[in-house]
C-alpha cells in the first residue's frame, strides 16, 4: 500500500470516530452522575438536523454547530425534566426520547432531503499543515476533531481534578449519602444530562456537516447506540472513549474500503461489522476481567432518586 492510501485511511478513521467520541463523552458524564440516558440516538439525529438546517440557511458553520448543541440540549431537557422532576423510569424515558427525536427530526427535516451544503473546511496552519505526512495527519483536520479531543480532556479534568467533578461522581455512586451531606443531587444530574445532550447534538452535527454534506432521516444509523456501548467499553474512563471510538471508526472505514476493493462478500455482511464488533468488544471486555468493570460502574446508574426531606 502506498503512503497516500494509508494517510487517507487514518484520516477516514479519525473522521468516523469523532461523532462517537462526542456522543460517548457526553453520555459518560451523564452515567457518572447516576443517570442512564438511552436517548443518545434521538439527540444525535436532532443535532444533525439542526446543524444542517442552520448551515444551509446561514452558511455560518459556527452558528450551525451552536444550533446543534442547543437543539441537543433542548431535547435532553425533556429527559431531564421527566426523570429528575417527575421521577420516571430512565430506560423507558430514554427510549421515548430516541423515538421522539427520530420522528421530530424526520418531520422537521422533510424539506431538506434534496439540498446540499458546503462541508466545513479543514483548518490550514501555514507551514505546519504543509509538512509531509505529519501535516495531513496532525494539522489538517476539521476544527471539530480537535474540539472532540479537547472535550475529552476537559471531562477528565472536570471529573478527577475539580470539586464539582468529585461531587458528581459521589452522587452517581450513592445519591442518598450525597444528598444527606447537602449536595444538590437533582441539580447536578440535570446539568449532566444537558451536557450530554449538547455533546450528542454536536456529534450528530459532525455527521451532517463534516462526514456527508447532506441530510437523511436515518443518517445516525445506530451510532447513538454504539456510543452507549462505548461508554461501557471505556469503563467510564474518559480517555478510553477515544480508544474505543478509534476501534469502531477503524472497523467502519476498513469495511468501506473492503467494499471498494470488491472483496467477494455481499455489502450487507460487511456493513454488519461495526454492530457485531460492538457486541464482540463488550464480551471480550467482560471475559478479560469481570470484576474490574463492575467496580468502576457508578452504583446508582439508572436508579431513581426521590428525596423525602
Amino acid at each position: 500500500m502506498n503512503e497516500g492510501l494509508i494517510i487517507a485511511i487514518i484520516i477516514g478513521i479519525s473522521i468516523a470516530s469523532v461523532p462517537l467520541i462526542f456522543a460517548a463523552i457526553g453520555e459518560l458524564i451523564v452515567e457518572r452522575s447516576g443517570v442512564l440516558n438511552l436517548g443518545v440516538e434521538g439527540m444525535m439525529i436532532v443535532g444533525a438536523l439542526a446543524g444542517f438546517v442552520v448551515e444551509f440557511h446561514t452558511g455560518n458553520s459556527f452558528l450551525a454547530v451552536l444550533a446543534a448543541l442547543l437543539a441537543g440540549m433542548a431535547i435532553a431537557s425533556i429527559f431531564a425534566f421527566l426523570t429528575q422532576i417527575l421521577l420516571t423510569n430512565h430506560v423507558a424515558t430514554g427510549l421515548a426520547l430516541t423515538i421522539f427525536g427520530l420522528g421530530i427530526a424526520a418531520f422537521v427535516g422533510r424539506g431538506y432531503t434534496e439540498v446540499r451544503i458546503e462541508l466545513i473546511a479543514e483548518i490550514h496552519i501555514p507551514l505546519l499543515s504543509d509538512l509531509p505526512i505529519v501535516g495531513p495527519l496532525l494539522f489538517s483536520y476539521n476544527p471539530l476533531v480537535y474540539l472532540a479531543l479537547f472535550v475529552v480532556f476537559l471531562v477528565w479534568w472536570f471529573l478527577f481534578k475539580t470539586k464539582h467533578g468529585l461531587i458528581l461522581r459521589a452522587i452517581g455512586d450513592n445519591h442518598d449519602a450525597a444528598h444527606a451531606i447537602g449536595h444538590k443531587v437533582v441539580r447536578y444530574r440535570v446539568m449532566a444530562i444537558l451536557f450530554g445532550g449538547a455533546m450528542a447534538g454536536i456529534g450528530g452535527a459532525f455527521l451532517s456537516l463534516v462526514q456527508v454534506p447532506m441530510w437523511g432521516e436515518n443518517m445516525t444509523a445506530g451510532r447513538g447506540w454504539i456510543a452507549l456501548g462505548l461508554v461501557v467499553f471505556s469503563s467510564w474512563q474518559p480517555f478510553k472513549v477515544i480508544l474505543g471510538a478509534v476501534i469502531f471508526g477503524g472497523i467502519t472505514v476498513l469495511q468501506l474500503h473492503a467494499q471498494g476493493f470488491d472483496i467477494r462478500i455481499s455489502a450487507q455482511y460487511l456493513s454488519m461489522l461495526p454492530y457485531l464488533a460492538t457486541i464482540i468488544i463488550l464480551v471480550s471486555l467482560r471475559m478479560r476481567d469481570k470484576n474490574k468493570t463492575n467496580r468502576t460502574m457508578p452504583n446508582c446508574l439508572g436508579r431513581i432518586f426521590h428525596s423525602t426531606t
Partner: protein
Amino acid sequence: MIRLILRTQPSKAMIFLSPLLAITLTAVTAFFIFVFILTDIEVSSVFYALFVEPLIDIYYVSELLVKATPLIIIALGLSIGFRAGVWNIGAEGQYVIGGIAGSTVGLYFYDVEGFWLMPLMSLAAILGGMFYAGIAAFLRTKYQVNEILVTLMLTYVAVLFLSAMVQGPLRDPSGFNFPESRLFHDSALLPIIWQGTRVNVSLIIAIILSFVAWFGLKKHISGMQVKITGSAPRAAKFAGFDDKKTVWFSLLISGGLAGLAGLFEAAGPIGQLNPGLPQFYGFTAIIVAFLARLHPIAIIFSALLIALTYLGGENVQIYFNLPSSITNIFQGMLLFYFLACEILIKYKVVFIKTTGQRI
C-alpha cells in the same frame, strides 16, 4: 412549592385515569405543534385524517386490526421481560429473523400444499426468534453483557441479513432481480377471517395469547417468579429464584413471540419476504407494553390505540404529503406523557406554602 409524597398504596383511580390523561395531553400538544408548524394546511382536517377517519370507515377499522396484531404479540412477550427487569429492546431484530426463518420453510415447500405447512413455518419462526434473543440471554448470563445493547446491535444486523437474503438465496428466480422472494402459495398464507379485508387468523391467535399470558401470569409459579425478580431482586434471590433462569425465560419468550409476529406479517399482509418487513413494530411494541402497564389484556387495547397512530400517519402522508414519521412523534410524546402521569399513581402531589426556608 409543589412536593411529591410517596403514597402508601398505589392509587387505584389513577391507574385508570393516568393513561387517559396522557392520551388527552398528547392530542392537545400535537394540536398546538401542528398549528405552529403547518401554517399552510388546515389543522382540523389533519386531525380528522389522523384520528377520526380511521375509526369510522370499515376499511380503516380492518386495517387497525391488521396493524394491532403484531403489536399485541410482540408486546406480550416484552411485557414479561420488562416485569423482570430484562430489557429486550431489539424485538425488531427477532421479528425479522423469525420472519426469515418461517418464510424460508414456506419457500422451501413452495410447490407443496398441506395444512401442516403453516404450523411448521410458525415453529421455525418461533425458534428463529428464540435463537436470536437467546444470544442476548447467553451473553447476559455468561458475561454480564447488557442485553439492551446486544439486542439493539443485533437488530441492525438482522435488517442487513434480511436484505442479503432477499437479494441472494431467497430471491424470486423469476422476479427480474427485484430484492424480494416468490409470492407465498396458499398453504403458506394465513387464512383471512374477515372477507374483503386483510384481517387474518393471526388476530385470533394474538387474542388467545393475551389470555394465556394473563392466566399464566396469575397462576403459574414462573409468572410469580418473573414478577418478584423484577420488583425485588434481592427478595427473589432469598426465595431461591434463579436470576439466570428469569433472564433466559424472559428473552426466549419475547424472542419467540417476536419471531412469530414477523412470520405472521410476511405470511399475512405482505404475502412474501421483502425488505418492507421491518416496520418498527418491535420498537413500537415497547410503547404498547408500557401503555398497558404490562397487563396482558390491556395490551390488546393499547395496541389498537398505537395502531391508530400508524394508520393516521399513513393517512396524512397520502392526503397532505407529510412524512409518516409523524407517527413516531406521536408515539414518543404519548410515552413521555404516560410516564409523566405515572407519578400520580405512586406519589401524591401536594402544594405547600413556602415559608421562606430552603429545603
